[in-house]
């Protein structure tokens, strides 16, 4: 959604074309991300000739402030939806930065890894907005990601297993 999309596109801006094909997953309720992604990929295809990408929408797992009990239900539903999608895509690398959308996808990827179907590297980059505290997605994926990147030194101190590269967006 919104700010997350802008941030993730900035993260992608310096990646070489070896990171291809790119599969974007975002919430079905998100109206603006598709346009931003297409614009980014359009500019990219002007630089790299064989640029490939796909877009997929998933049900939003949780609205901000949604109650715990209903969040469990909607997240489970999102996982059920994300599992076949992740199985189809079989990503080598998952890059996410915090929207609720990413947790079910990462859980699906972890399951596929456990079942020895496909092992993906999960890289989580916490949003630049998070200076002192982690987002809920961050708190969960801190334990389940392979690499957890934070953008402010306070968080590096609080979460020692994280990676601090300074501001990267």
């Amino acid at each position, binding site marked *: 959604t*919104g*700010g997350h999309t*802008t941030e993730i596109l*900035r*993260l*992608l*801006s*310096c*990646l*070489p074309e*070896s*990171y291809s094909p790119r599969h974007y997953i975002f919430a079905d309720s998100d109206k603006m991300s598709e346009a931003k992604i297409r614009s980014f990929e359009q500019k990219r295809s002007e630089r790299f000739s064989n640029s490939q990408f796909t877009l997929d929408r998933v049900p939003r797992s949780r609205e901000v402030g949604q109650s715990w009990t209903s969040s469990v239900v909607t997240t489970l539903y999102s996982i059920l939806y994300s599992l076949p999608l992740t199985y189809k895509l079989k990503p*080598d*690398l998952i*890059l996410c930065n915090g929207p609720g959308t990413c947790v079910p996808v990462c859980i699906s990827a972890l399951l596929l890894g456990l079942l020895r179907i496909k092992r993906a*590297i999960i*890289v989580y*980059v916490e*949003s*630049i*907005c*998070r*200076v*002192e*505290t982690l*987002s809920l997605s961050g708190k969960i994926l801190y334990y389940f990601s*392979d*690499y957890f*990147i934070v*953008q*402010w030194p306070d968080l590096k101190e609080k979460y020692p297993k994280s*990676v601090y*590269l*300074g*501001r*990267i*967006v």
Partner: protein
Amino acid sequence: FRFKDSLAEDLRRADLVISHAGAGSCLETLEKGKPLIVVTNEKLMNNHQLELAKQLHRDGHVLCCNCSTLVETLQSMDLSTLKPFPPGQPEKFALFLDKVVGFQ
């Protein structure tokens, strides 16, 4: 205006920006090198939105005030005390990721 697709043009022409503490607004303004006054309303905002505004203020990149002190801030502000905001470095992320996946 209520909603625009992009504020880039307005930002380009502005000499001073007064904004709420939304991350997108703050960062977009600072990246364009415009002086920024962030108006915070602690009652309305959830805590995490304040984190970035507070940090930017601590680092000397923005002036902060609330609605009731805005006029006073505008009258007494010294914009030359604001420090320039260096851009983020996605190249560092690319280097890191290359090592992680073995593309070195």
